[in-house]
């Protein structure tokens, strides 16, 4: 069997499987071994589905032998624990769902299974995807493989960490305000958030329905393109999933960026951005310019309103979405309730953590009679303005580029007492969620040994453009190949 399988990307592994250099079973066993030995100190998994994975790998090998290999046949992945997986624990990082075994599969789980993927487990995450550091998880924080004292970001911190630590080549993830892109940036991986409506939300436990979007974290852009091609497309079980043709994402990568118009947002480089991060991003932009891309400055005048807007819209939706967790039908139920009110109050009081409660309360407040117009309605109007800003900008450019996160990975515990500072971590990523745009974060350098991400945003259904831009950048650099020493 080949050595160093854990270092290979999905695309490389697919080729190896196809050539018969190793079987999916061997690959799966190798990665499960790494997960067992290296996983616990990272706390990246909530559930490891070893038995299921081995069975799936055997099926994949048999399918290949029978000449019936799917697009992802025998390739190992993990799912963020926000996706419902039939017969497997699906916790969403919460005590509320500590014992919840889903009776059905999410659409993307179904599609990846059907393509032959082998699922190794479910990854740790901020509780109900509410957090930027993975510290709100009921199952404890995930640690960043580049420095175990630091956060991998969030909320898809477990997915990013497993990929960065070479425990698995790719992971599914979700992004409501930056939850794919920010952890990708903080762990030196590639994180793709597609256009809102590109990938079905069916079976993805809702945080903020109008912002949530499923995507992937990988170690190569080609892998992201490969997975997106399987996950994307219309699903009749999600009314917000658009019936829009799925292009050949991998085929779109090879085209050069010559003449590609890249917009630089002036406000992105204002105070708040770490100077060394800024330098790394500027250098990355110079690389793209060297490849023939044309850099121009664009203005997003309402960008400074994106964080406050987000923190009205997202909590409002979450306060309603999380009402179904009431202790009546599933999930945590308080012991010996005295009456209905006691059942509600204690089940929810015990089941939810502090950050989730904070957002439910904020959301309940902004939707309340007398406050709705001033907060929720106003926020929706500002959201429109922000979307308009992007639309205007995309009249002149093909991609908007900038930093993914204002700083590299921060220490665990550093920001937990100050939610506002924590919220500002998503300042560069939230706009794409509010406007429903596709975005990708790709590694573009290091600051004090910690990865920095380059953020590329495209117009609606502009996945091909952002993927191509990231891919072409990747061809000139090797940041995405950097591996934390303990995980080589």
């Amino acid at each position, binding site marked *: 069997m080949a050595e160093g399988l854990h270092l290979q990307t999905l695309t490389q592994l697919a080729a190896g499987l196809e050539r018969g250099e190793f079987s999916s079973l061997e690959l799966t066993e190798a990665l499960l071994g790494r997960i067992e030995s290296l996983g616990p100190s990272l706390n990246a998994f909530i559930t490891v589905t070893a038995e299921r994975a081995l069975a799936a790998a055997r099926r994949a090998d048999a399918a290949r032998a029978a000449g019936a290999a799917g697009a992802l046949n025998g390739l190992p992945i993990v799912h963020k624990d926000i*996706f*419902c997986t039939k017969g497997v624990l*699906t916790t*969403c990082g919460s005590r509320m*769902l500590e014992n*919840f075994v*889903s*009776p*059905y599969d*999410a659409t993307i789980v179904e599609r990846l299974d059907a393509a032959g993927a082998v699922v190794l487990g479910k990854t740790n995450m901020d509780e109900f995807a509410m957090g930027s550091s993975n510290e709100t998880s009921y199952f404890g924080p995930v640690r960043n493989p580049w420095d175990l004292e630091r956060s991998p970001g969030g909320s898809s911190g477990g997915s990013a960490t497993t990929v960065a630590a070479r425990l698995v080549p790719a992971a599914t993830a979700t992004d409501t305000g930056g939850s794919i892109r920010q952890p990708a940036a903080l762990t030196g991986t590639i994180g793709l958030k597609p256009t809102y409506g590109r990938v079905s*939300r*069916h*079976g*993805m*436990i*809702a945080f*903020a*329905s*109008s912002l949530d979007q499923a995507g992937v974290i990988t170690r190569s852009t080609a892998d992201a393109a490969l997975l997106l091609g399987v996950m994307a497309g219309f699903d*009749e*079980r*999600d*009314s*917000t999933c658009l019936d829009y043709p799925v292009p050949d994402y991998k085929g779109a990568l090879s085209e050069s960026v010559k003449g590609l118009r890249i917009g630089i947002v002036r406000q992105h480089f204002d105070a708040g951005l770490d100077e060394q991060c800024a330098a790394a991003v500027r250098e990355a932009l110079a690389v793209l310019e060297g490849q023939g891309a044309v850099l121009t400055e664009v203005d997003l005048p309402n960008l400074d309103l994106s964080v406050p807007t987000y923190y009205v819209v997202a909590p*409002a*939706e979450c*306060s*309603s979405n*999380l*009402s*179904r*967790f*009431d202790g*009546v*039908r*599933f*999930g945590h139920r308080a012991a010996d309730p005295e009456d*209905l009110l006691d059942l*509600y109050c204690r089940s929810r009081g015990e089941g939810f953590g502090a950050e989730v409660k904070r957002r439910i309360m904020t959301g*309940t407040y902004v*939707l*309340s*009679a007398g406050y*709705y117009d001033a907060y*929720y309605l106003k926020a929706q109007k500002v959201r429109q303005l922000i979307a308009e800003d992007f639309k205007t900008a995309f009249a002149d450019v093909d991609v908007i580029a900038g930093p993914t996160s204002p700083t590299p990975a921060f220490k665990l515990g550093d920001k937990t007492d100050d939610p506002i500072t924590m919220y500002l971590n998503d300042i560069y990523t939230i706009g794409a969620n509010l406007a429903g745009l596709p975005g990708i974060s790709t590694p573009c350098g290091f600051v004090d040994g910690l990865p920095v991400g380059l953020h590329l945003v495209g117009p609606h259904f502009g996945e091909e453009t952002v993927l191509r831009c990231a891919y072409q950048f990747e061809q000139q650099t090797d940041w995405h190949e950097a591996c934390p020493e303990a995980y080589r």
Partner: protein
Amino acid sequence: MSGQWEAVIGLEIHAQLATRSKIFSGASTAYGAEPNTQACLVDLGYPGVLPVLNEEVVRMACAFGLAINATVAPRSVFARKNYFYPDLPKGYQISQYELPIVEHGELFISDAHGDNKRIGITRAHLEEDAGKSIHEGFAHSSGIDLNRAGTPLLEIVSEPDMRSAKEAVTYMRKIHTLVRYLGISDGNMQEGSFRCDANVSVRPRGQQELGTRTETKNLNSFRFVEKAINFEIERQIELLEDGGEIVQETRLYDSNKDETRPMRSKEEANDYRYFPDPDLLPVEIAADFVEAVRDTLPELPDAKQQRFVDDYGLKADDAGILTGSRALADYFETVAAATEAKAQLVANWVIGDLAGALNRDGLDIEQSPISATELAGLLERIEDNTLSGKIAKEVFQAMWTSERSADAIIETKGLRQITDSSAIEAVVDKVIAANPSQVAEYQSGKDKLIGFFVGQVMKETGGKANPGQVNAMLKDKLAK
């Protein structure tokens, strides 16, 4: 009601739409299944599941909008009404709030003076029903049946245009007839498919400003609507006359005690925090969709009633009764088309003997043992003088129980009317000969005795002689 008070009434009618599956899921809407056997993961509000709108409910709401001359909104929006209750699985009900699918409709009823009165319909919106909490049969706990959760409802909100319980019931009946005509609701009130909340207030006659209203919830029969409203009107007037004040509140009607009572205030202290449901896109209805629905609309009750008056020459009241349901109207028309009998005679029979028999046996018109064609066969025999009206009733009863045709019964029972003059003449002669003293009295001017002679002839013929013929012949012979 005291003369100086005026009641102001508005109704919110909930009509369950007659779709096979639920409004946002594929689960069945059939009534009466074992608890929780018709609730899928969407109805149960499981994590990660999403609502998908059933197109059929849009078509139905659209048909209703057209039928009440309303605006069918080109764009309507589903909103979440947030509150916690065990039979509300998601912790919110999907409804429509600011932008309903139907707005600005109207319906005409006859008021107390028989005049046409317009009742405005503010809006009609789509929403999902909740499940059902069951408190009986459980010790120290409650049961929840979510079969009904997600059942599509059309909530029809009237303007406060009604001034008496009677008007309110007339309006509600009219809506009931209409939704069944359109085939969008079975209107079954026992099963809760058609129910209403009544908003009632009173004010001194002549005052423009509205009084404080109460809302009486979940009235599921026409009788209860009338009684609850009348109770509420009396209660409010009495309270005001005693110097009290009306509290704006939600009340429940107790049919056993025939009174309304306030609901616990805790249940209505909710701030529902309505906001557009981000899981559902706005419903955009194109003009050609509306036109396609318009093309499928049946003839509506008012138009049908007018046509029955114009084309069949029926009395307006009779036409109103016959058009009270599509099935009854269709029955009438089938009979009318199959016989030479006058339409008013057909109407009299359908409204009279047939409706009476159906009512007696607790049957719907669809279950009538006598089909429209069979009834036409009976009326044919009246029209061609084979049967007298009296004998026809006898034949009708025989048909009702025997499933045999009128002609078969007439033949076997020998009920054919005697129209043969010579046969009648023989009997007439016999009766005249047998009653000489009465003949003398008649001839001395006691004209009324003609009835006696007719009666005797009919008796002799077993009622089969044609009464008109007998009458004429007797008069002729006795005059000699």
